[in-house]
């Protein structure tokens, strides 16, 4: 038997608790940041002042066109030079959040554009102040439309969070690599870690597809 069950049972609890905990922290932290920041980016890109909307759009485009991994390196290596000291996990959460904000901003943008013109016109006809038009009419509808796509990005952030292991975060994959390097044997820890991701990501995606269909009707 190639598979070592004894060792599997030995390392499973650690992967399940310590490793998964860090993965969830990274995912949730990154997602919250991406969802909030993305909304601001979407709003800034709609600004009527070109000196705001243009640069924000360009930066967002740039972040989306370059690898998360390199962005993580930049944060991890360069930030301390400017006197910003953070744990690797915090650095990783910021990296995930900023990177995926460039995606979620597009989701919000589509959501905002999907709000029918009649809604804006009704708000004007009712003399609703501009900021209240956004807060109570447009954004609630836009965010609702965005939910399925945001759900997909939550899963995407979860799946991509192992990249944080490259900047020394000990998440499920980071831990699996550590365990593997102790014995020069990666089969069990890597397989278990991979299964974690499958077992969480696939049901989550199916759930989101269901939600999407329900919102459609």
């Amino acid at each position: 038997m190639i598979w070592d069950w004894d060792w599997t049972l030995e390392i499973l609890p650690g992967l399940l608790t310590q490793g998964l905990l860090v993965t969830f922290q990274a995912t949730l932290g990154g997602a919250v940041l991406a969802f909030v920041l993305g909304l601001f980016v979407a709003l800034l890109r709609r600004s009527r002042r070109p000196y705001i909307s243009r640069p924000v759009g360009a930066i967002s485009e740039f972040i989306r066109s370059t690898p998360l991994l390199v962005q993580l390196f930049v944060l991890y290596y360069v930030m301390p030079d400017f006197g910003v000291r953070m744990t690797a996990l915090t650095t990783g959460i910021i990296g995930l959040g900023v990177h995926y904000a460039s995606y979620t901003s597009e989701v919000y943008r589509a959501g905002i554009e999907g709000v029918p013109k009649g809604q804006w016109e009704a708000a004007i006809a009712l003399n609703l102040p501009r900021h209240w038009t956004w807060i109570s009419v447009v954004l609630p509808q836009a965010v609702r439309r965005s939910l399925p796509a945001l759900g997909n990005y939550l899963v995407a952030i979860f799946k991509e969070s192992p990249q944080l292991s490259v900047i020394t975060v000990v998440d499920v994959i980071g831990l699996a690599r550590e365990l593997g390097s102790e014995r020069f044997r990666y089969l069990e820890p890597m397989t278990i870690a991979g299964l974690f991701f499958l077992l969480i990501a696939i049901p989550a995606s199916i759930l989101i597809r269901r939600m999407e269909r329900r919102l459609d009707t």
Partner: protein
Amino acid sequence: MITINPCSAELPGALGETMPFLCDGAVITLQSAVGGSVLAIAIALPVGLMATSRHRGVRAAARVYMEFFRGTSVLVQLFWLFYAMPLLTGFQLDKLFAGILALGLNLGAYGSEVVRGAVRAVPRGQLEAAVALNLSPFQRMRYVVLPQAFVEMVPPMNNLLIELLKATSLLSAITVADLAYEGRLLVNSGSDQLIVFALLLAIYFLLSYLITLLMRFVEGRAARVVGRERPRRRAATAVEAAR
């Protein structure tokens, strides 16, 4: 006229120190991106079509592949192929090959979804007309459905190819000497971090932009084949659909 070789060690200052290495890395990055794309497309077309099949079993097989490889990220698949699989199967993949394999399998799964969606987006009437003209199933696919579906595929494929390019950076984690790897090496050996990272990001951005230009050209050609104006592009919507 003076031509400047951007990879030359003669360039002034930090550029001369770093660019030769980054160019070496860029070549590897391109190799893995091209290899990964070819594999991904070679997988996506048949699997995507399988996913639209009338036979339940065929559909299910396609689904299983797609769900499995979309269920984990490239990095996890890469680690598994490179670190875990050798123990199980007894042979060690070359690291660049393992990288291309992981990229192709992963992005191929997303690509299958794009193909499936595009084929299903072809209006039913088109297929019915083809049946009425007594075209064989193969002819229907080849001459009616695929040319129309192809136009729909190009914009989301553009986004997937950019995702693939970005994912090549993960190969550095199994010590493939790509751009990201060379960049990190330079930083670790004392080159100016800001310059190295700025160059790194700029090169990746440039490559992404090249992909977009290429795909716009392809899209224009594909649209002309079916006699359509080039559809207006919407930046990241396809990525949403794929992710």
